[in-house]
């Protein structure tokens, strides 16, 4: 059973959570009264799993968006803590300031030195304000680039976790070259001489997500989403009504299954029953297994092959026809 029943919960999760609450109450009363409830508990647990499977197998794209943004979803730091045996956080772009919306540092994955970085959201209002809801400024992307070139210099693989509504649209961000910072990262990541693996763990929002997402292997967590613009933004422009976000979410095909079907990502990392937020440890374990698999393949390639394959991978992205 999930490690927590603390909310807040999404509407479609409530029946599952309520059932789990019943199981807990039953167990507690049995412990006090000495009644044997083992059979009933087992029955209810099977029921909870069935209910969960049923609800999660029929999720609408908009419900995936809600899961990807879930207040309890594991953040980059939650995953780092559970995946790596060592983490030395590093700060600053050496130009302007340290952007708390992006974290990164030296880490060890099963003993192997790697560099890890990613967008960082908060858990409550205060930490979300501090993290700017995971929306980076140019200095955040420049910090990421500084760390990535550091890893390149010392020949360490790079792992990135993507979880952002998008790059921050503000005055300072524009003044300091938000577009240039993102563009620069795309070009630099395409040319890195070390293996790179990107995992969209929650929200893959637009260019702000892609700025950490050009990699040899790209994965998405099962309930993560990835799109060119937020559903609200898309709805505001094409439907002229931000409230049509669920329609836009559907139309943009932003789920992991869609991205995989379109061969824009390399794989989907399964989430624990009820979603990654129900069991951070299990979610981290699944991500870790995928990272180990990917790196085992990538570190075997020489630099030239690695970079040629990366370019070929991106050249193949897109669907068009050619009239003669």
């Amino acid at each position, binding site marked *: 059973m999930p490690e927590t029943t603390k909310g807040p919960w999404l509407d479609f999760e409530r029946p599952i959570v309520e059932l789990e609450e019943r199981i807990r109450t039953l167990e507690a009363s049995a412990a006090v009264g000495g009644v044997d409830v083992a059979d009933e508990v087992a029955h209810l647990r099977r029921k909870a799993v069935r209910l969960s499977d049923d609800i999660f197998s029929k999720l609408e794209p908009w419900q995936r968006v809600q899961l990807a943004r879930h207040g309890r979803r594991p953040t980059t730091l939650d995953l780092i803590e559970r995946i790596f045996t060592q983490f030395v956080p590093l700060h600053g772009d050496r130009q302007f300031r340290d952007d708390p919306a992006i974290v990164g540092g030296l880490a060890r994955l099963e003993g192997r030195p790697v560099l890890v970085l990613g967008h960082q959201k908060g858990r409550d209002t205060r930490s979300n304000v501090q993290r700017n809801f995971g929306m980076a400024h140019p200095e955040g992307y420049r910090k990421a680039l500084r760390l990535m070139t550091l890893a390149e210099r010392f020949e360490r693989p790079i792992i990135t976790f993507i979880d952002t509504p998008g*790059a*921050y*649209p*503000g*005055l300072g*961000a*524009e*003044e*300091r*070259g*938000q*577009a*240039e910072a*993102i*563009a*620069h990262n*795309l*070009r*630099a990541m*395409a*040319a890195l001489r070390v293996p790179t693996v990107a995992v969209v763990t929650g929200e893959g929002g*637009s*260019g702000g997500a*892609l*700025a950490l*997402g*050009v990699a040899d292997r790209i994965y998405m967590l099962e309930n993560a989403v*990835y*799109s*060119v*613009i937020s559903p609200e*933004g*898309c709805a505001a*422009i*094409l*439907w002229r009504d931000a409230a049509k976000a669920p*329609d*836009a979410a559907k*139309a*943009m*095909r*932003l789920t992991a299954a*869609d*991205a995989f079907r*379109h061969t*824009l990502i390399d794989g989907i990392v399964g989430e624990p029953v009820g979603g990654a937020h129900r069991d951070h440890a299990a979610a981290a374990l699944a991500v870790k297994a995928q990272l180990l698999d990917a790196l085992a393949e990538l570190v075997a390639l020489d630099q030239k092959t690695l970079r040629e394959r*990366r*370019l070929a991978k*991106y*050249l193949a*992205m*897109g*669907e*068009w*026809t*050619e*009239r*003669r």
Partner: protein
Amino acid sequence: MSWLNRAARGIQSLAKQKDVPDNLWQKCPGCGEILYRRELERSWYVCGACGFHLPLDAVRYIDLLLDADSWEELYAGVTSVDPLGFRDSRRYPDRLRVARRQTGREDAVITGRGRLDGLPVNLAVLDFAFMGGSLGSAMGEKIARLLLDASSQRRSAIVVSRSGGARMQESLFSLMQMAKTAAVLARLREEGVPFISLCVNPTYGGVTASFAMLGDLNLGEPGAMIGFAGPRVIKQTIGGDLPEGFQSAEFLLEKGQLDQVVERRRLKATLATILRWFCEDRDVSIPGPVRE
């Protein structure tokens, strides 16, 4: 009047001129002067009274920048499909059909080879009239091919950007075109083949956040609005008004985001000077017969 309003009016006046193709004059959005179309044609749509840069059709940039009869269009047949089955109030294929009819083009960029003051170059010009110059798979493919050709033939590359940003109807496919074009630019950069980006009004979103900001030099036209997020989104985010001139080419120049703001009628000469500096005594953009 803010640059934003002036730019918006510039776009409106373009729309009007399409509705009434035979009108003989047009009011300058900058100074209100009545300008005669024949005069505007001769001045590349720059107001003779105040220097305001009115929108210039994509195809006219080819005439502006390249030597007469040197243009050879490439990849004209590359055309958008509808990979997501996208539909909002209209189906994406219907929007494409309308855009094709209005522009006579398959997608929102023209790509090809030509000569700039004798120097062989590869040129791409985004067409704002085709779905706002938005970046989809077809544009990404055409620009990637043009840049790969520039790399293998060692010809300098120039992209004239004018775009609202990504093509939402292709969502993640569109986003990945930013990575695709940037990946090819990484190769050009390693091989010492020059790439010049020129941003004209307006250049936004996924186009700015990829190839348009990745030039060895980034240039802008006077008064052009250039940015990542659109002014409306930023206003909403900060809950207040934007400073005068925010996101104009002059603003970007001041903030260190552009190398130069170049008046349209000086563009070709400026590019020739720059490219000669980049290419002289080097194995790039060698004048003479086009290498195959």
